[in-house]
């Protein structure tokens, strides 16, 4: 138990720190600070140009969705990076239990995704002049954290895929794009084709974005509690799928001796 806790906390922290290029200000500032602000501004101005929605709608949708960048890419890179450094094999032959091993890698990523969303929301609101009452902030913070958790669950799935696919960045980019169009980020689910709305209900961020918009409009926790719980449930579902995929592909890569091939 104690070993698993060490693997979870220390292993996760070390793995995150090993993504040292991500922690460089030369990457951190353009990726996690400039990127989300311009995504918010881009869609807010597209909305103004089309005469559709309001700044608050685009601000919240894109701020929450941008958590996907760290959540998907960092989790995918946690496997792809180990392969690149030739340490993946060493990790997978270790007797460490897989659940704390991989979930430990997810914890710092959740925090990263949450901070990126919070930063985007705060700065985006200041730039666009959207006023969010202070009273709604605690609830928004909870929703952002839950959304980052749910998206990291999907990130764990990409980590599993990374055991089979070398191009983890491409996979993460495609999933990021799918989340952008499916999750009601820039267009309400009601305006999407019905099949897309059905799919969206099974994706992370959809319910988080909906809850955040309701909270900004004055809803209480009682009003959005169920939506937030569904978002958390979706995150747990993907977390389990991710762990199963990691297990299956680990066994397969041992059997076919393809671990380092990617």
């Amino acid at each position: 138990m104690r070993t698993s806790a060490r693997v979870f906390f220390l292993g996760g922290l070390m793995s995150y720190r090993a993504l040292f290029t991500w922690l460089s200000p030369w990457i951190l500032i353009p990726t996690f600070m400039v990127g989300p602000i311009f995504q918010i501004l881009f869609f807010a101005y597209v909305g103004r140009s089309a005469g559709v929605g309001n700044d608050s709608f685009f601000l919240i949708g894109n701020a929450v969705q941008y958590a996907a960048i760290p959540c998907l890419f960092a989790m995918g890179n946690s496997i792809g990076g180990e392969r690149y450094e030739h340490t993946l094999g060493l990790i997978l032959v270790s007797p460490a239990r897989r659940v704390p091993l991989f979930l430990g890698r997810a914890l710092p990523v959740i925090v990263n995704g949450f901070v990126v969303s919070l930063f985007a929301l705060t700065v985006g609101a200041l730039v666009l002049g959207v006023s969010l009452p202070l009273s709604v902030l605690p609830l928004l913070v909870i929703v952002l954290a839950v959304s980052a958790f749910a998206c990291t669950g999907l990130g764990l799935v990409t980590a599993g895929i990374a055991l089979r696919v070398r191009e983890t960045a491409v996979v993460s980019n495609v999933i990021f794009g799918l989340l952008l169009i499916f999750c009601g980020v820039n267009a309400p689910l009601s305006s999407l084709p019905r099949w897309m709305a059905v799919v969206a209900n099974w994706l992370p961020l959809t319910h988080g974005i909906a809850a955040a918009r309701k909270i900004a409009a004055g809803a209480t926790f009682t009003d959005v509690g169920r939506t937030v719980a569904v978002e958390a449930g979706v995150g747990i579902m993907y977390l389990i799928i991710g762990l199963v995929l990691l297990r299956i592909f680990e066994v397969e890569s041992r059997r076919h001796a393809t671990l380092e091939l990617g």
Partner: protein
Amino acid sequence: MSVPRLIGLGWWLQMKMRSRSAFDGALSIIYPMFFATSVFFIYRQGASSSALVAAAVGASVMGVWSAVATTAATSLQGERRQGTLELLVASPTPLPLIVVPITLSMAAIGLYSLVATLLWGRFAFGIKVSLLHPLAFAVACVVTALSVSVLGFVLAVTAVRYRSAWALGTALELPIWLICGFLVPLSILPHWVRPLSWLIPTTWGVSAVKRAALGGMPWRDIAICLVVAAVYAAIGTLLAGRLVDSARTNATLSLI
């Protein structure tokens, strides 16, 4: 070797190299389409059908910049990783004539994305774009791609000392989409942004593409686009010379 032949052969070689990765090739075409699809959904909610058509034309050009921004920023870093940067710099051919075909090939792949986005808009969203001046549209698209490749060339030589250049390229993708009028008219951007937009050749290229497709005379914008792109090419050439001299003097060319 003559300059046109050098650029032509370099471009063709780069096109073949870029076509080797199905993943990267597909991503170049698909990634901007995610943004275009979001835009179509936004416009479909309430804007007029003419605005939707204008959005389709603007969104289609987004892919050209998308194909160049990140890849151009990392192009020389990639050569350095492969150990070929010193060979390229040491060759008697001036560095700009080697880099320009690289960014031209990226912009050419972006033209695939342009066509794919127009077709996606037509068949998935029913947006029928009737080109008013087809020949001018084709010329404007090629000139815009050329201007984007020149912009990519400047980015490539500027970012040669920047280890994480991909992050810079990625971060520039949306700002250029925003301020060059791909989708958002310059008139609704803050006043101080407009002079910045006019200084970027792509702004004029996009305007020419829209005029050629939707109505208006594109030739003036095409001419301005070419002139501004020529200025960028000159700036990039000077920069390349300075940076190569600096790297030779300090023996830092191969250092990451």
